[in-house]
């Protein structure tokens, strides 16, 4: 049976092989060419960042020749930033805020997702819907009342206010992703654990977290992205350089009045984009999987 099908297929294939094959081949080349054009367009700004960061201030202000290429590459901008106390401070603040935000968000969202996916309680359905809707609330909607609230807590110009506020941006989506992953774990597993005498927290720790590790990684990356790149809250709530994080620090420190130290600004952008780029380079698959799974379940 399968032999005849295969024979027929070969015969048909041989008949149409040339034209079809060639057509496919051209479609493939066309796709590659079009993709290459897009990649080129997408990578122009990062390329320009890199080029500018390698130029000395003199070369930038000379304004001669192609701005796209660097004639005398130098690392002086990077060296300046690495030894510049303010920049070190911003980096440290960003790292502290991000680590705390990610930990807090993950604890809150894993606990909540575990409960929402497994233990029904009064209003749990409503809460799941509410979590999803909260994700749709953009930061720019509430930053003004939050300014007042943060002020009354005495946390204006204190980067701890970010640790308090960033979880509101990260937790809803992390919870949403985790609910999806936890729901896909077969119920037999927790029944088995209960019969063996495990408590809920043991069950979460020994079964759910290890099994849903890809989801946890995706959620962690999301929380990291939010807290590393956020711009509005730190811009609105922080104003002295000892409290600033990278995104606002670069803009307010390296731009003084009308003097733009573009070489240093671009070098700072590169250094600040490094952690996300490294993380995405290694863990992109998890993140994309988590993101698309979260959206399709919506």
């Amino acid at each position: 049976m399968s032999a005849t099908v295969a024979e027929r297929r070969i015969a048909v294939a041989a008949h149409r092989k040339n034209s079809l094959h060639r057509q496919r081949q051209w479609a493939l080349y066309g796709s590659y060419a079009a993709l290459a054009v897009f990649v080129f367009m997408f990578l122009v700004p990062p390329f320009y960042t890199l080029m500018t960061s390698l130029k000395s201030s003199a070369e930038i202000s000379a304004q001669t020749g192609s701005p796209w290429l660097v004639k005398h590459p130098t690392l002086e901008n990077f060296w300046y930033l690495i030894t510049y106390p303010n920049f070190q401070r911003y980096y440290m603040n960003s790292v502290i805020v991000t680590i705390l935000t990610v930990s807090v968000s993950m604890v809150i969202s894993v606990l909540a997702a575990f409960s929402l996916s497994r233990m029904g309680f009064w209003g749990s359905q409503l809460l799941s819907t509410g979590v999803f809707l909260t994700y749709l609330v953009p930061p720019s909607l509430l930053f003004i009342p939050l300014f007042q609230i943060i002020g009354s807590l005495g946390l204006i110009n204190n980067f701890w206010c970010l640790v308090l506020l960033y979880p509101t941006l990260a937790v809803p989506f992390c919870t949403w992703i985790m609910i999806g992953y936890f729901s896909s774990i077969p119920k037999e597993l927790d029944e088995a654990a209960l019969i063996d005498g495990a408590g809920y927290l043991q069950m979460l720790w020994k079964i759910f977290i290890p099994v849903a590790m890809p989801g946890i990684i995706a959620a962690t990356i999301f929380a990291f992205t939010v807290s590393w790149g956020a711009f509005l809250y730190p811009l609105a709530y922080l104003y002295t350089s000892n409290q600033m994080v990278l995104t606002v620090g670069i803009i307010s420190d390296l731009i003084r009045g009308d003097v733009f130290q573009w070489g240093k600004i671009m070098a700072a952008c590169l250094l600040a984009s490094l952690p996300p780029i490294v993380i995405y380079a290694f863990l992109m698959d998890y993140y994309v999987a988590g993101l698309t799974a979260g959206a399709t379940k919506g």
Partner: protein
Amino acid sequence: MVDGTSVPIGVTAPRSKAGRKTTMQKFAQRRSTTGFLLCLPLILLIACFVIYPAFYAIYLSMLNKKMTAFVGLGNFEFLLKRHTFQLVIFQSCLFAITSVVLKALLGFTLAHLMHNIPGKNQKIWRGLLLVPWVIPLALSTLTWWWMFDPSYSAFNWVLNQFGFANVPWLGVGWIARFCTIAVNVWFGTPFFMIMYLAALKSVPEQLYEAAAIDGAHGIQKLIFVTLPMMRNIIAITVLFSLITTFADFDIVRILTAGGPQDMTHVFATYAFQVGIQSGDIPLGAADSLFMFPILAFAAFFVLRGVTQRTKEIAA
């Protein structure tokens, strides 16, 4: 939480008070108490920093500038009559709708191109195409600003090489509007691409085979097979993107700070300027609140459509 560490099934000695209840009921009750306790941090977070601020914003928006007197809807009325604010409404809608449409179209094209090439090569191309989306937006916008720089614009240099005159990228209203949209499209297209690519991969191959047997050609397959199968994910992606684009702050703030002549201001940047920089908190709060009905409207219709379709599929 303490209860959660030891959950017995039918082995605990019955308590005297709850003696009438069956073990199963008690188990269910305990389970729901634990469930509630595990959700408590989430509930507190949302209540304190999302729901309370939302109501507080409504209250704030009805005060006068010094926050001493109640003025009702005065701030909203004042804003609507102001020419700058009318520009804000127009630019916000233009910015959001144009960007989202462009992002959706480009993302769809890219997803198709990616779907055409063999799987093992997809990873590297995807990695390259996702770069704009990986760099924090505030930082990449700085680069764009530098490329649009009036005195030493990298784009103008290229134009000059081809014999064109300099373009005042961020100096003229409509060109600046175009620039903000371009940056947004550059940043957001990769997100659409990965979403659509995932959706494309989930369309069963048999549907295409069946369509081919019925004599459908490429475009018919796209319209009658691919698009209907992807409708939900397209709707969700467009909704996410519409909300983030509509509420965008970073691009406009860094690139133009609302200028020239307030022509590029969107709700968020205008609220920042009025509320934080000029210190008129109530007016800023009122300005932000204008976003809410628009976002809620979009969310309601998209999500209703999605749930309806999900039910149809399930039925």
